[in-house]
């Protein structure tokens, strides 16, 4: 039994945590949140120099060729620091999609730039409120031109290109769309977490090419989402851990009725409940990343389990952290709202809780059908 990260991976964690505690303090997050840029470009460059954007990209395309375990370690630390970076869009989704489905030419073209961080990529899925449905996609490519509307796309304003979910006729596909071109309008939208910019994309006869040399099977799309979910779970876990630590520290410092509020069972039980959810989420995140890294058939179940656990742990911890702080937690000046915003934001990308509860039960049903 070896259900633990390796020593090298643990060292990477220490290194990442040390780096972010120096270069991505909550003051850095606050600056981005207060401004209109939607990211910290100099932090992005530093992170890219550390090689984080290159983690799982193969060496042949300028990457480090490391495993998903290393990427999970980095994801958790980015979550812990609430890093204002387009990392998940560019790395868990766009780079993954290009590496997985791209033609040789597309990979040679894009992956080295994504690995070095000189290119930032967004990932555009949703078109309207509600669950994403592949059958209802309206964004359409005809030959080398794409038209359509994509809503609430994370990081599009700072990205150079977007991987766009679209269709040709009734076939579903992913398209590569450079964003700095006529035919693409990037309209910033204010979301609940402006430390990560979001935009609507209006595509009018924009130049585009299909990713890969054929259409996308629903199974392949699911596989891409499962992989992203397993990684998002680690970033969400990092947020949950930070929220718990902040609540614990405050409960020790803050006195009421002559004693630390952390000595009252009402507060202790709240924090114990956070710890329990975080522990379940961590163990399930191990399961998810194990299935992704080892290419296991259990990935659909493991990713959904990790994702649901991470959504529940991170939103609960962020909500109850504010509650533990009382009125001060509701102020702009305290950092509690960073975790509250980011936890909810990350719970909404790549499908929200009920979507992944459904996927989890689908995977369980398939498993019991196989067993029967």
């Amino acid at each position, binding site marked *: *039994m070896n259900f633990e990260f390796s020593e090298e991976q643990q060292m990477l964690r220490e290194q990442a945590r040390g780096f972010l505690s120096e270069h991505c303090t909550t003051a850095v997050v606050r600056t981005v949140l207060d401004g209109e840029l939607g990211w910290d470009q100099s932090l992005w460059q530093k992170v890219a120099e550390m090689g984080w954007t290159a983690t799982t990209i193969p060496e042949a395309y300028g990457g480090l060729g490391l495993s998903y375990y290393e990427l999970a370690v980095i994801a958790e630390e980015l979550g812990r620091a609430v890093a204002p970076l387009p990392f998940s869009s560019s790395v868990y989704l766009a780079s993954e999609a290009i590496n997985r489905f791209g033609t040789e030419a597309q990979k040679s073209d894009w992956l080295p730039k994504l690995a070095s961080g000189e290119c930032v990529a967004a990932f555009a899925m949703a078109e309207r409120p509600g669950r994403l449905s592949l059958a209802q996609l309206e964004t359409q490519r005809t030959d080398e031109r794409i038209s359509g509307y994509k809503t609430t796309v994370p990081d599009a304003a700072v990205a150079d290109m977007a991987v766009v979910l679209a269709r040709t006729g009734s076939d579903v596909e992913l398209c590569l769309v450079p964003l700095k071109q006529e035919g693409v309008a990037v309209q910033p939208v204010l979301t609940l977490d402006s430390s990560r910019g979001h935009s609507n994309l209006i595509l009018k006869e924009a130049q585009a090419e299909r990713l890969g040399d054929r259409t996308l099977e629903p199974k392949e799309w699911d596989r891409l989402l499962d992989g992203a979910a397993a990684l998002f779970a680690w970033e969400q876990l990092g947020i949950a851990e930070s929220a718990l630590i902040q609540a614990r520290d405050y409960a020790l410092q803050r006195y009421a009725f002559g004693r630390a509020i952390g000595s009252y069972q009402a507060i202790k039980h709240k924090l114990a409940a956070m710890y329990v959810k975080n522990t379940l989420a961590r*163990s399930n995140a191990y399961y998810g990343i194990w299935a992704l890294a080892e290419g296991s058939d259990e990935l659909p179940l493991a990713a959904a389990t990790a994702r649901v656990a991470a959504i529940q742990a991170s939103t609960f911890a962020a909500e109850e952290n504010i509650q533990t702080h009382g009125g001060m937690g509701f102020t702009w000046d305290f950092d509690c709202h960073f975790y509250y915003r980011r936890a909810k934001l990350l719970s909404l990308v790549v499908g929200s809780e009920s979507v992944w509860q459904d996927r989890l039960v689908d995977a369980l049903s398939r498993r019991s059908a196989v067993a029967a």
Partner: protein
Amino acid sequence: MDFNDTPEEARFRKEAASWLADNVPTDDAFRALAPLEQAKIWQKRKYDDGWACIGWAPGFGGRGASPIEEVIWRQEESEYELPSNFFLIGQGMIGPTLMAWASEEDKARFLPPLASGEEVWCQLFSEPAGGSDLAALRTRAERDGDDWIINGQKIWTSGAHYSDYGVIVVRTDPNVPKHKGLSYFYIDMKAPGVEVKPIKQLTGDADFNEVYFTDVRISDSCRLGGVGQGWQVALTTLMNERAAIGGGFGQMDVSMAMSVVQDLEIDGQPALSNAAVRARLADWYVQEAGLKYTGYRSLTALSRGALPGPENSIGKLVGAPKMQAMASYLMDLLGASGAVVDENLATKAGIIQRAYMGAPGLRIAGGTDEIMANIIAERVLGLPQEPRLDKGIPFNEVPTG
């Protein structure tokens, strides 16, 4: 990461599996025996071949196995439907206490028959006045030459009715603060003045008892630890308790819930396609898998010779309420017939209803949900204890209800 055994672990697993395959009793005559008799026969068979209490030193009846080997053994043993374990408290909690505190002579006398199942032990801690606040116990022992005279009452004592020996915490000095006036003894359950009365539980079963002590005389040589040191000795026992109780939650798991749901409809549609049902199933699976993989992480620590971290303490706190919630919801889905407990008529032979009726006990035994949450808050998160009004006050001056 991988889930595979190391070569040494695999070798051990194979040895364990092959012994089990050769030795697990399957004959009808054995099955016809009373549960305690079955358990004693099986335990003795394991003992004779060196498969009882394998983590104990060979001199005490074990084989000095490593913690990871103990886990492997439990996994292999759980592949079989074996007699209920009547020795869990004795072997899991009292054995380690004797090892830490008893004289060499007593260890040699008591540990081997405890390992072999020939002598059964119970734990006499809780009292009507002291449950979560265990140190508030009132059963007293008064010195009489080389002996002690015990008077008082214990409660919730599992297996007292079939136990040969028990360990007991008593108050030997009421004039000092409560933790300082306790002493710890072992006691012959057949001694004059010991009276065991079964408690009928809300399930209708009687697994535990009230035990009354009237002028029970025991020798001072039965004392473990110093006079007034009983609390420290009791902590040794309690530290091993959660490991012993934490365990599994029977057949109430998500695959069982799925199989119930698969046979039901809601408004003419399969219940399994109902969004509310799916959300519950998913949430339970998250808890179940979370506990399973937390266990794997602990196992990894053990496998590397390290101690598992505090994450292990969540098992009972998550598992017991989950079992209750799951049973309750499945009964809701079954509607009126969810109330049926007759094994021949009920869905899943009444497992769901038994789980629902048993769950309140699991949420209380070995530390209530609230105490478990306090333990996590204090020992894992480092939060302070609630102020205690009885702190530093002689026990006989502490206000009581």
